[in-house]
């Protein structure tokens, strides 16, 4: 899918807003923003956003495609839904942020080593493999995502917590060798594959004005 980005650039040459509207989950809401900034002010991780949501919306309208899609900002969303609850125009901002992140990922534009993107991918991989999430494997994976040495360091630091979790029966070392999973994992995988195919078709088939 690496040339999907190029394809989209060509297709929506004049308007990133149209591209977002067509391809980003809930993207058609972006035009409804009236720049009040309540979302930006409401975000718990607000200070860590280089471009807060309302500014991202403005950048989308201003055709600042690269800056938006390569941004680290929407990866700061904790899914707290404060912005949605307060937005006077009813924009599903949380979902739009998720959608932008998803879209950036599909176009391969996510900044390298974006921790939430990496973590999220591990999470997804885990659940799509087993139908359920293996907390331990993700945890360990997270420790080692930046290499073995860093991983050992992280693991040492988190050891105390790990022990506590084990002790309170809230983590099980055996999880690493199997653990919680659905019975019909193959069915789930088939289902997800089909769903993904359907979604891919949407991007390449429709120009966004449809549906």
């Amino acid at each position, binding site marked *: 899918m690496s040339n999907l980005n190029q394809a989209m650039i060509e297709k929506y040459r*004049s308007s990133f*807003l149209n591209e977002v509207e067509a391809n980003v989950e809930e993207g058609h809401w972006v*035009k409804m923003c*009236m*720049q009040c900034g309540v979302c930006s002010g409401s975000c718990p991780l607000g200070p860590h956003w280089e471009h807060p949501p309302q500014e991202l919306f*403005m*950048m989308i309208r*201003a055709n600042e495609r690269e800056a938006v899609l390569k941004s680290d900002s929407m990866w700061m969303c904790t899914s707290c839904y404060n912005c949605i609850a307060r937005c006077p*125009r009813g924009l599903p901002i949380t979902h739009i942020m998720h959608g932008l992140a998803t879209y950036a990922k599909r176009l391969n534009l996510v900044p390298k080593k974006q921790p939430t993107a990496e973590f999220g991918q591990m999470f997804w991989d885990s659940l799509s493999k087993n139908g359920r999430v293996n907390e331990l494997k993700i945890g360990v994976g997270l420790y080692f995502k930046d290499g073995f040495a860093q991983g050992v360091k992280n693991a040492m630091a988190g050891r105390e917590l790990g022990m506590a979790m084990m002790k309170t029966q809230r983590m099980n070392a055996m999880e690493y060798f199997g653990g919680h999973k659905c019975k019909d994992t193959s069915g789930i995988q088939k289902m997800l594959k089909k769903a993904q195919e359907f979604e891919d078709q949407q991007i390449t088939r429709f120009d966004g004005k449809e549906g």
Partner: protein
Amino acid sequence: MSENKTGAYICQGCGLGERLDTSQLVTIATRDGKANVAKEHEFLCSAEGVKMIQDDIDNEGVNKVVIAACSRRAKTDAFRFDDVAMSRANLREGVIWVRPDTDEARETTQEMADDYVRMACAEVKHMKLPESSGEQSLNRHLMVVGGGISGLTSAIEAAKAGYKVDLVEKSGELGGQVGKLYKSVPRKNGLQGYVDSEIGELIEAVNANDNITIHLNTTVAGTEGAPGRFKAELATESGSTSSIEIGAIVQATGFRRYDINQLDNLGGGKSPDVVDQMGFEELAKAANGGTIKRPSDGKEVSNVVFVQCAGQRSNEPGHLNYCSGHCCTTSIKQAMYVRDAGGDATVLFDDLRTPGATGEDFYRAGQEKGVAFSKGKCTSVDTSGDLKVNFKDLILDEDATANADMVVLATGMVPASGPNPYLQLELDEAKNQEGQEEKVVKLEAELAKAPDSILNLSYRQGTDVPHLKNGFTDSHFICFPYETRRTGIYTAGPVRRPMDTSQAIEDATGATMKAIQACENAAQGRAAHPRSGDLSFPSFRKEGCTQCKRCTVECPFGAIDEDEKGYPQYNEARCRRCGTCMGACPVRVISFENYSVETVGQQLKNVDIPDEFDEKPRILVLACENDAYPALDMAGMNREEISPWARIIPVRCLGSVNTIWITDALNSGYDGVMLMGCQKGDNYQCHFVKGSEMAHYRMSKIDDTLKTLNLEKERVQTYEVSIADIQRIPKLINDMDKMIVDEIGMSPFKF
């Protein structure tokens, strides 16, 4: 007149009986006030009390009634007697409620009451029941000037109410600016987006209505008369003239387009592809739903930038310093045209102004359609090649450039009013004075730029309706939007203030309401707002008149003309009964039946002035009946203490205060005189527009009089007060008291 019979009725209720010696008041009414009948009643406003008075009117021939009880503002339902002159001595709010209930205060409180009874008796003695002047005529016929949306609305709404209308339109067709629009902003349900204009149906309805006569290619060559009896000369382009008689006039002359060439930094006049909103409408109309083609080369427009507030809300020379109110929704509408034809549209705005329910919904509709909105300040439009709009993006805080096939500048509305009538008068005056050459040059230059007259009024005070600001016609624009300064002539639509189509329709309907009301009032000889229903009107004693023209100049409403000999010619139906003419008259020949130099002069003269050694000063307070007097009433309700030396007389307007009252008061030994009127100036609150200002002007010259009398100038003070000055007004009076007692001492003019 022997038939005059005065009845004075003194109330004992609400504590008056306990606080005052009412039997003494009866004696005073009879002895000093010369009342033929004087009675006390324990509860005068009760059914029995009122009946007692009514019986005297019916059976004893009482035709002048003095009610000595509460304020004239209270119990008006009870004390309403037909066909008698009435005066009210305010003993409750004006006396016992502003004085302490103590033994020491008893004597001076009684003196106040005594005086107010004397004053009321004196006043009523000089009052006459207003009678018809014989000028009235009923003419249910309006002239509407201007055939745009406002004028058409006015015509049809008047016709629907059963009135006849002459609709005068300068151009060859009806519809005005709205007629040139491709589509309209809806008047309701803004979410539906733009709608078909209603103007076509409206024109049809006007054409089809038998009550409406349409005059195209026609202007008003002359207008004379007054509400109920206006005469207008209509002149057609071809040179023929006709004359119509109408009861009232609605001026709905709309607006002119701001000259886009003045905005050359925004590309105005430099590229045919930079247009104003009306220009864009013309293109949209030509495209009729298809893609708009740009003027320069006919290319289909796919990207349009709308620049809001172009040459507006700005103090730069040549710009309009106001907001035209409609341009945000208009640009949204036009951006929708572009979106619907498949193009991109960006609106560069500072504050997006789409107020109300319909407005905000329309904004959302524009967003739904994908119109891009950017808070940005356009710095320039580059017309050298493809259009480039340079702007500061205020949200992203960066300089940005947008390419565009076309740029639409949201320029403002310039009111299509007539010339400011006072310019010519000012010029005439300046020419007659020495050393005003500079002013003459300036005024002449201004006049040269002035538009043609619209109404060509034959009024003494000029040809057109006065302006308030920026060429918009004058109105008391918060509570009473339709009070222009020319009674019976109502302006509506953007000539009055900038507005959109929806508001123009409401405005024109409202103005029409006032116009038909003016016809009805004129038929009855009744005053228009704010002294609605007043039947009194000014007249003058010709033999005393010196033709000084003060009255004709000072009338805030241009109601008084001059005859060929220079005598004032009153036009009762134009008059608002403020009495400014009466106040202006140096020889005191102007009066109303129930309000005159005498009715007030006799009141102040009938106050008992103790001699100098009693150390009981007297302070005359002349208080505007609309603001100062109600404030004093409310001071009473709050039991604010007021100096027992004050004697308060309500006046219709401070403009009606004749300096003779001041001189008389000082001559008869008053120690101080206070005038209380409303705020003047740009944000005037005077309901007679100029009354308070005129009073201040006259009083600025009173110092000479004081000097000749050898009196301190502090003894006469003029104040701007408001109805909310419930504590301040008593304090002003008490301060005057203190100043007299502590500083300047008693007047030497006591006998």
